[in-house]
């Protein structure tokens, strides 16, 4: 409403800059904000003392000589992948590389990163140096160690001051941080630097530390008994070289993305990347890491013909259903497909036939909503073929025995397991949660009743109960000949649990959509399906971003309950495995502290990402 305009066109208003509020010098600021009144002064002094006390306690814990920090440094590989066999490690690196390539391309294509003034970077470094010096003085160090840390602080502060001075000089061409790190581009101005460059410098620093700092190395050899191969004073060659390669790959992918993004159509590129991101976890897990040995006879004799039949039949059916002239008859046919899909469960039959039929029913039911011209129809059929192809391939791979030889039930553990369960759960439970929310708010009483019962039931049961039920009980209930691995059962249970909570968050978003939006969509003749897909859901999901991200963080952290049913997640390894190694008896506290740092890094990134998404999608808000 602020824009001044008229039917004759926008009036040119001369621009008057707003008055500049002068920034207070530090001393004034402190007086105005921290010592403005006797009460405020007391509060400042008391809380300052409390903070100093806490810091001192934390530092004396961290730097106490009896702390066994070797334990975490040496066991990093155990924490990341648990018992994945050494000789197959190339698979882990390939998976990591794929993720990093996708990350690099995405960073470039979505134009991530923002410019930061170089002077601000310098100021922050100076502040970091000062803080380090303060902490050094607080910490219970020996004299020589104190001197060393103070020197380090001074170096950091001096570096910061140097950058600050450098940025103040009006030389327009150089970015000093950019020349240090290989991971990004400095701003054109020379006095700003992108956050991506800073990220690159930080990652480079970490990788360089692998070559310099003596981390230990923990490995499984020969008879699969875990044995610590502490290599004091040396660095595990197996880790530092691959990580260096990984860094190079990430940077290369970023620059490749930069050079490609202007030549390719933006939307198509982004869509391709999103699909790749969705496909990456299952493909990497079941095809790369698990390395199934396909039985070619079975694949050619059974799986391919089934796929072919559904591909051809489904394509014909869907291209008919999406024809705008089909109308009501199409809906009846789609409902019939769904009934047939359910009937298949009454007869003994291959699971894949049933699953494919249900997927086809879903596509058929949604088809009238997406009915349209030649292009829309072709796109819909291609979507069906894509989903069918990927799911058939994955189901075949999952049912094929793995060649990777590992002790225990599942071939992965540690942080990889935590991430895998979290990602799969979120990917499955998001659509499920949205469907539940829609069902609960729908006008159809049966859907509403079922959804409400499901949500209320699941929310009334502890997660542990559900995990135990799905890991122990579900295999007993399955029909003969059907096998579900324990991890899959757990992910299914966890997804149902998380879907119930997500559904309530989405429902909150749905309720925030005004009646006017519904009416406007109805007034232009949209069907309920079209209204939901194009008008209601996009706005509802945006309104529900903060609680949804909160739920995602919760799902990620609560994967630690997997330990209850005997899976080795990262927290379980830290609290039950590592403290029992003969070298690192009783190192629980260090390990748990380290693992909580890992959790925090991921959770914090998710929360930052949510803020960025909110900002980016906030464009359409008033």
């Amino acid at each position, binding site marked *: 409403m602020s*824009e001044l305009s008229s039917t004759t066109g926008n009036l040119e208003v001369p621009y008057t800059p707003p008055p500049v509020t002068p920034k207070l010098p530090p001393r004034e600021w402190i007086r105005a904000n921290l010592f403005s009144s006797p009460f405020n002064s007391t509060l400042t002094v008391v809380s300052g003392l409390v903070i100093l006390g806490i810091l001192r306690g934390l530092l004396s814990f961290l730097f106490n000589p009896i702390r066994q920090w070797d334990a975490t440094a040496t066991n990093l590989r155990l924490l990341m992948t648990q018992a994945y066999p050494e000789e197959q490690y190339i698979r882990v690196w390939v998976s990591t590389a794929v993720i990093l390539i996708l990350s690099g391309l995405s960073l470039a294509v979505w134009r991530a990163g923002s410019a930061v003034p170089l002077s601000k970077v310098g100021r922050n470094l100076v502040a970091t140096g000062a803080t380090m010096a303060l902490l050094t003085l607080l910490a219970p160090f020996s004299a020589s160690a104190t001197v060393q840390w103070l020197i380090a602080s001074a170096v950091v502060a001096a570096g910061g001051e140097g950058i600050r001075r450098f940025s103040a000089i009006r030389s327009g061409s150089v970015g000093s941080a950019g020349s240090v790190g290989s991971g990004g581009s400095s701003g054109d101005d020379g006095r700003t630097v992108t956050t991506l460059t800073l990220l690159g410098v930080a990652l480079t620093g970490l990788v360089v530390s692998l070559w310099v700092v003596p981390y230990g190395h923990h490995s499984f050899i020969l008879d699969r008994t875990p044995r610590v191969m502490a290599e004091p004073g040396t660095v595990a060659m197996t880790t530092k070289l691959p990580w260096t390669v990984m860094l190079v790959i990430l940077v290369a992918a970023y620059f490749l993305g930069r050079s490609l993004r202007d030549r390719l159509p933006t939307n198509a590129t982004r869509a391709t990347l999103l699909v790749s991101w969705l496909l990456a976890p299952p493909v990497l897990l079941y095809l790369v890491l698990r390395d199934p040995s396909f039985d070619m006879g079975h694949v050619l004799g059974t799986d391919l013909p089934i796929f072919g039949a559904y591909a051809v039949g489904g394509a014909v059916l869907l291209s008919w259903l999406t024809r705008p002239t089909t109308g009501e008859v199409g809906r009846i046919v789609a409902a019939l497909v769904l009934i047939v899909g359910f009937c298949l469960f009454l007869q003994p039959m291959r699971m894949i036939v049933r699953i494919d039929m249900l997927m086809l029913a879903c596509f058929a039911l949604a088809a009238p909503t997406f009915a349209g011209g030649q292009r829309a129809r072709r796109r819909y059929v291609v979507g069906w073929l894509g989903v069918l192809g990927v799911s058939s391939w994955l189901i075949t791979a999952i049912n094929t025995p793995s060649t990777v030889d590992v002790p225990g039930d599942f071939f992965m553990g540690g942080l990889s397991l935590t991430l895998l369960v979290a990602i799969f759960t979120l990917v499955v439970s998001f659509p499920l949660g949205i469907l539940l929310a829609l069902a609960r708010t729908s006008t159809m009483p049966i859907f509403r009743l079922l959804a409400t019962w499901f949500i209320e039931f699941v929310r009334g049961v502890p997660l542990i109960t559900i995990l135990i039920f799905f890991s122990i009980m579900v295999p007993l209930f399955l029909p003969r000949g059907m096998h579900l691995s324990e991890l899959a059962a757990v992910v299914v249970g966890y997804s149902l649990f998380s879907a119930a909570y997500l559904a309530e968050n989405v429902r909150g978003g749905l309720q925030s959509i005004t009646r006017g939006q519904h009416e406007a969509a109805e007034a*232009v003749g949209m069907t309920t399906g079209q209204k939901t897909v194009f008008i209601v859901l996009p706005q509802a999901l945006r309104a529900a971003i903060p609680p949804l991200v909160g739920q995602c963080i919760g799902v990620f952290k609560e994967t630690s309950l997997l330990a209850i049913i005997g899976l080795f997640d990262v927290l379980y390894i830290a609290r039950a495995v590592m403290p029992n190694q003969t070298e690192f008896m009783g190192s629980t506290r260090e390990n748990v502290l380290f693992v909580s740092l890992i959790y925090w890094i991921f959770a914090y990134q998710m929360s930052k990402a949510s803020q960025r998404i909110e900002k980016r999608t906030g*464009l359409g808000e008033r």
Partner: protein
Amino acid sequence: MNDAASNPETSSPAAAAAASGQTRDLSGARDMIVCEDVSKWYGDFQALDKVSATIKEQEVVVVLGPSGSGKSTWIRCINRLEVHQEGRIVVDDVELTNDMRNIEKVRSEVGMVFQQFNLFPHLTIRDNVTLAPIWVRKKPRAEAEEQAMALLERVGIPEQADKYPGQLSGGQQQRVAIARALAMEPRIMLFDEPTSALDPEMIKEVLDVMKTLAHSGMTMMVVTHEMGFAKEVADRLIFMEDGQIVEQNTPDLFFSNPTEERTKLFLSQIL
């Protein structure tokens, strides 16, 4: 369905007459909206009480009345945003019943403009206008976008096509809402107090667009408090109170010689 009269660009003899400001003779035109004894209750409160009226093709009808007189309820019944409980409503030979197919058919033939604009805030102006033609009318995207630009040109804001509704002024938003309704190539346009949420200086730009539309031969039903617009554009005024039609007449006679006491009182208060 797409005869000349429904195409706003084509002018017809009647439209030419309207453009010259004369009272038109529409007695030979066909009935576009027929309401017979339409009644509606909210709980115990009767919002519409046996409303009967017929609106001819190309006719511009302005509905007046004090707040709570049932004008908005009536206009919203015509595209089934509200459900009438008694009586019949027939729009372009399709009767409104509980049959979803009839309702969708009527809705895609009837454009509606709301008091609160109700643009889709998450879509650009261009997408707001093209969404329904692409998905409801099944138009190819390129054609829909071309049409959208032509419509935005017509309502005077082609340069805003890539902005979001939140970045536009109220008057501009309401003009986009009109373009969005026109993109469905409706045969009837309903306006539910289109200028009531606008600042005085923005009312004119919206009314100008509506006048052009009326002169192009669109069948229009307008709920408004803008007497100037009613005098200048309407073929007929309908005055409502307490859910009933009190009086209806041509603008000249309505303002100069109202027959009912209640109408006189209303006019004395607003003029």
